[in-house]
């Protein structure tokens, strides 16, 4: 039995009050790492967002910020290295190998696990993307450490532990989670939850290369092909500057054409609340909110959306929120900046027309003459 197991059961509140006693072999774990998500030559912007957040944590801890870049040999991978520095990393741990051409769990989790075991970071952050979640679960299990998913806030507390805050109980509450006696402390964060840091032109810094002891024959899973998304299904909600969204208040599937019309007039993306997806009025990749996409547009127009907490957490990063809702007491007016208490089905077409009138260069010329 371990020392800990002999102790009487913790009082109510679980182990929350327990003192941290980090085992000796974890005491050498230092520095903050971000696993840079590189897929098919592209770095996912969430990695830069995490570098911004990681910088803050590293500064608070007085340690270095590093990026872990895993990819095939070649220009794209070195570009990712350079960008990792440009977004604030002090150093990069690099694993380059031909078997890393496409993302596959086996070689990627081996590469990241080996890096962690060799260089021992105290904090490891990943994006909560399809790649990041696939990888994070494997790596955390292999390392037998804690992993907090979908964090909305990361901080370092007085005793230097990572305080990872995430929604709980269906999003109505937040909870702060610690990884007490294990290292690294791992967390994932969804795209757009953290602000994009300023990019700085910086020379490439210290790169530590690690060799992956694996050949293609060791890898069971083969990538037979990759089918890129068609232009039409490339939904870029998370990174759109303007988003127009509709909720159940629009009343019928047909009325979502009004949302799409306004969006196309504004060169915007469109989205919706969750029940709209559940009704089959819009596909799931259009859902905004806690279990959908997090967005950070310059302008967000919400039509017929009540503003439930699970929706709110997905849009709070917007610079300007306009709400159109018939109910003056709808919760959305508690966090929108501009509100219109009116029927969205009536207002949306008028708004589309008004934007056309206002913005069409042709009409401007006419007005000027």
């Amino acid at each position: 039995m371990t020392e800990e197991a002999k102790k009487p059961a913790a009082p109510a509140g679980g182990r929350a009050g327990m003192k941290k006693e980090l085992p000796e072999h974890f005491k050498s774990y230092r520095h903050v790492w971000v696993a840079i998500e590189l897929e098919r030559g592209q770095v996912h912007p969430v990695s830069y967002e995490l570098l911004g957040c990681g910088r803050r944590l590293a500064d608070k801890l007085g340690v270095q910020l590093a990026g872990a870049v895993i990819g095939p040999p070649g220009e794209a991978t070195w570009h990712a290295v350079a960008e990792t520095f440009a977004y604030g990393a002090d150093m990069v741990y690099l694993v380059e190998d031909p078997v890393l051409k496409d993302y596959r769990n086996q070689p990627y989790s081996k590469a990241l696990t080996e890096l962690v075991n060799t260089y021992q970071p105290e904090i490891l952050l990943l994006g909560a993307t399809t790649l990041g979640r696939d990888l994070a679960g494997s790596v955390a299990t292999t390392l037998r450490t804690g992993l907090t998913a979908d964090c909305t806030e990361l901080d370092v507390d007085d005793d230097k532990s990572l305080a990872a805050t995430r929604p709980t109980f269906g999003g109505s509450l937040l909870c702060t989670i610690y990884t007490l006696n294990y290292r690294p402390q791992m967390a994932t964060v969804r795209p757009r939850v953290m602000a994009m840091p300023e990019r700085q032109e910086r020379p490439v810094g210290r790169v530590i290369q690690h060799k992956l002891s694996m050949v293609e024959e060791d890898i069971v899973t083969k990538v037979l092909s990759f089918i890129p998304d068609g232009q039409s299904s490339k939904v870029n909600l998370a990174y759109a500057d303007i988003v127009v969204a509709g909720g159940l208040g629009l009343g019928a599937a047909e009325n979502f054409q009004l949302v799409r019309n306004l969006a196309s007039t504004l060169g915007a993306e469109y989205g919706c609340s969750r029940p709209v997806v559940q009704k089959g009025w819009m596909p799931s990749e259009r859902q905004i909110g806690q279990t959908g996409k997090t967005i950070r547009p310059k302008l967000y127009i919400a039509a017929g959306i009540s503003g439930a907490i699970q929706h709110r957490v997905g849009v709070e990063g917007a610079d300007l929120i306009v709400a159109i809702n018939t109910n003056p007491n709808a919760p959305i007016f508690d966090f929108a900046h501009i509100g219109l208490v009116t029927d969205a089905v009536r207002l949306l077409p008028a708004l589309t027309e008004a934007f056309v009138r206002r913005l069409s260069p042709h009409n401007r010329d006419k007005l000027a003459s």
Partner: protein
Amino acid sequence: MHIVVCIKQVPDSAQIRVHPVTNTIMRQGVPTIINPFDLFSLEEALRMRDAHGGEVTVLTMGPPMASDSLRKALTFGADRGVLLTDRFFAGSDTLATSFALSAAIEKIGKVYGKADVIFAGKQTIDGDTAQVGPGIAKRLDLLQLTYVAKIAAVDPSAREITVERRAEGGTQVLQTRLPCLVTMLEGSNEIRRGTLNDALRAARAEIVTWNAADAGIEDLTKCGLRGSPTVVKRVFAPTARQERATIIGEAGDNARDLADGLIATLFARKPALEPALVASGCAA
């Protein structure tokens, strides 16, 4: 083929309410459901069995009442339900959960035959971590296929599976060896109704119930709160923003006036929006 599907009984979170004053969860009377994401995996397992023969065993870890969810899975057509229940599992985080489930899967293998494919839900609606599937795969040293949109082919004799997996910017077509762990993407299929026979069988079925010892778990320090490296330190309500929206339009107003008024207000608040919109070529 022997296919094991891991499911979780979750509160129907749409019906959870937080007490407005005390900020505590009002769980009483909240109905439970099978985690909706698990149903896509269950359906795929049933299809695989229907196509290739064999059995589907559904596994859950939870309190005794979680057997309801297993029975429900039997009404859809699953062959067997295994409930893993023990007070030692209370407070499990994802690491401890994947430990207990993987032990149970090994035991299921010994009792009912080794699994060829293990399915788990993509994520749960209460925990949302998407880590238990990958965790089980790692524990059992299996290959994992997550975010699968379509199972393109299964060849039980060649021990091969080919799937279409959602990736960033497209779909990967992956081929790997059995046994493996699969999590299905939402919307990838639709759960069947199940036959009358299934319903009758489910009503009578005995749910296999194992505690930690039954599942062959010796090291209890890997279970529950003790086996969970993560600890919830604080639960709190999100802070409300002070400022409410400026209401600029009322129901009776003319739509065209409202629209013009909104645009004027927008550009007054954010002058940069107008040139940005014009530059983006909109409304041309």
